[in-house]
């Protein structure tokens, strides 16, 4: 019996992927395809944030800066130079290299600090990029942003949908490999006990810089993909809200589990869509962020491990039948 249930759970992602792959044949409404593509992209973005928050225990408030670098790199190259396939690759490369350099420099400068000082400094760095995007009008057109063309191949929503789906699956597998590698295990040790990790002979700062570069590069790719979805970029990609989205998705989905990022991204994007569409019913739904606030408070109080984390614990408890007397998942 237990074998069967484990088997089904292992099968679940494959079934979901197959359903998602078949979806465009059942319904090709443009808006749903765009929504799903956005979910795939944000899932990867949330996973990249989870590398920092869930695996290494670093709280960053500046993750939007890498997302924005990727989005603006695509926008500017497509708009100023041309919308060929080669240029698209060049733009992604520029975004990745810039993000790597910025995350390396920010990491070197700040990762030696205590966690809350680091959080504040990343907030300041992200602010710097917002200002840059606003003021460098000749390139970024300021606050209003600008639309840009993308290669014909990706203009078809269905093609782009599949591209985004593959993007998510690929990065899920890559990041899972990364977190299970010897290096990834050390990251989790740092989250658990930084001083002890150092006294085992690991140089903690090196690991933190590596993970912030990896997370930054992945976030830049997500930003590029996001720009390609909207074919438009403005300063909102650098905003605090973008970072907060990643934070919410990670926490609601479950920190320290890559699945959590996917679940969180799906929930938040769907809820966002649903609540905004309810605005016709009652104007309070215009302020959907209020409901997010409530949802967030509920999750943190009732499922501090997030959805994926709670599910994992539940499975484990079923397997080893730990008595329910002592709970690990709630702080009280």
């Amino acid at each position: 019996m237990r074998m069967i249930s484990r088997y089904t759970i292992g099968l679940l992602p494959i079934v979901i992927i197959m359903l998602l792959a078949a979806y465009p044949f059942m319904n090709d409404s443009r808006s749903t395809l765009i929504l799903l593509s956005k979910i795939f992209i944000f899932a990867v973005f949330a996973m990249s944030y989870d590398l920092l928050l869930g695996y290494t225990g670093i709280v960053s408030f500046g993750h939007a800066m890498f997302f924005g670098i990727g989005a603006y790199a695509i926008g500017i190259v497509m708009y100023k130079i041309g919308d060929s396939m080669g240029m698209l690759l060049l733009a992604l490369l520029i975004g990745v290299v810039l993000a790597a350099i910025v995350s390396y420099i920010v990491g070197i400068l700040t990762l030696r600090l205590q966690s809350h000082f680091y959080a504040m400094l990343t907030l300041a760095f992200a602010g710097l990029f917002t200002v840059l995007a606003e003021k460098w009008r000749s390139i970024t057109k300021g606050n209003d942003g600008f639309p840009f063309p993308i290669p014909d191949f990706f203009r078809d929503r269905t093609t782009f949908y599949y591209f985004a789906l593959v993007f998510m699956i690929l990065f899920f597998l890559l990041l899972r490999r990364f977190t299970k590698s010897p290096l990834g295990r050390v990251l989790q040790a740092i989250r658990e006990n930084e001083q002890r990790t150092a006294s085992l002979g690991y140089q903690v700062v090196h690991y933190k810089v590596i993970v912030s570069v990896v997370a930054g590069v992945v976030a830049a790719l997500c930003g590029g993909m996001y720009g390609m979805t909207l074919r438009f970029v403005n300063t909102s990609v650098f905003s605090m809200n973008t970072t907060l989205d990643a934070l919410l998705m990670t926490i609601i989905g479950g920190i320290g589990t890559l699945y959590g990022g996917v679940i969180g991204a799906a929930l938040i994007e769907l809820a966002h869509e649903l609540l905004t569409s309810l605005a016709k019913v009652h104007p309070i739904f215009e302020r959907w962020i209020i409901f997010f606030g409530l949802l967030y408070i509920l999750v943190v109080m009732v499922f501090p491990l997030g959805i994926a984390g709670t599910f994992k614990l539940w499975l484990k408890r079923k397997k080893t039948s730990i008595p329910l007397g002592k709970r690990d998942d709630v702080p009280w």
Partner: protein
Amino acid sequence: MESILKTRELTIDFGGQAAVSGVSLEVPKHQFQSIIGPNGAGKTTLFNLLSGQLQPTHGTILFKETDITHLSPPLRTRMGMGRSFQITNVFPNLTVLENVRLAVQSSAGVRFNFFSALSRFKQFEEEAVHYLKSVMLDGKRDSLAKHLAHGEKRKLEIAMLLALKPELLLLDEPTAGISIEEVPAILDVLRGIKEQGDKTILLIEHKMDMVLDLSDSVTVLFNGKLLASGSPQDIMNNELVQSAYLGGLYDDAS
């Protein structure tokens, strides 16, 4: 006899208060040396200086004839110095096996690998199990470290320390906070390490009777200063030490 660790005039000031002052210590290779002293004598501070958690105000530390005064803790560990902590210091949300496996991985020098062969991983795990067996903890390999009893956590610490394959072990009160029934088990583990004869052990202890029969030599620390050093027998009969422990001694300098 050749010495593995040497300190010269090691001093650290915390805002005018010298917690350790002018300690010159020499630890011969393959010896079991204990540092004892009453509360607040500076034992743990001395250890923090040796393992690099603190930087001395002045003085030098030589490890295997190399000056390590300004090396960071991870680099000292890689040179072959491993330490345990007085306050239990493990990775609470990782399994017992993973705790030790991380130490094995470090001593194998696998640090920045993104990808590793599965067989290599298996080998690390087998080695980790071996260390768990040596501290009689292999039955708990899949429990989370935070679910262990206090004495088991101390044993886990020792297993992690051994997995680093250090030449010099710095043990900070390995029996602190352990119930009296569990103490012999820990002492047995220590005796086992000593009998293998290839490691140097420097141990801090508050209760001197605990370690007298294990130690080759004993050093007494009092008010941050070296009070006496010698064989356990000498120290037992030393009047200065007796008065320090009984509280009859007042240091003029402080």
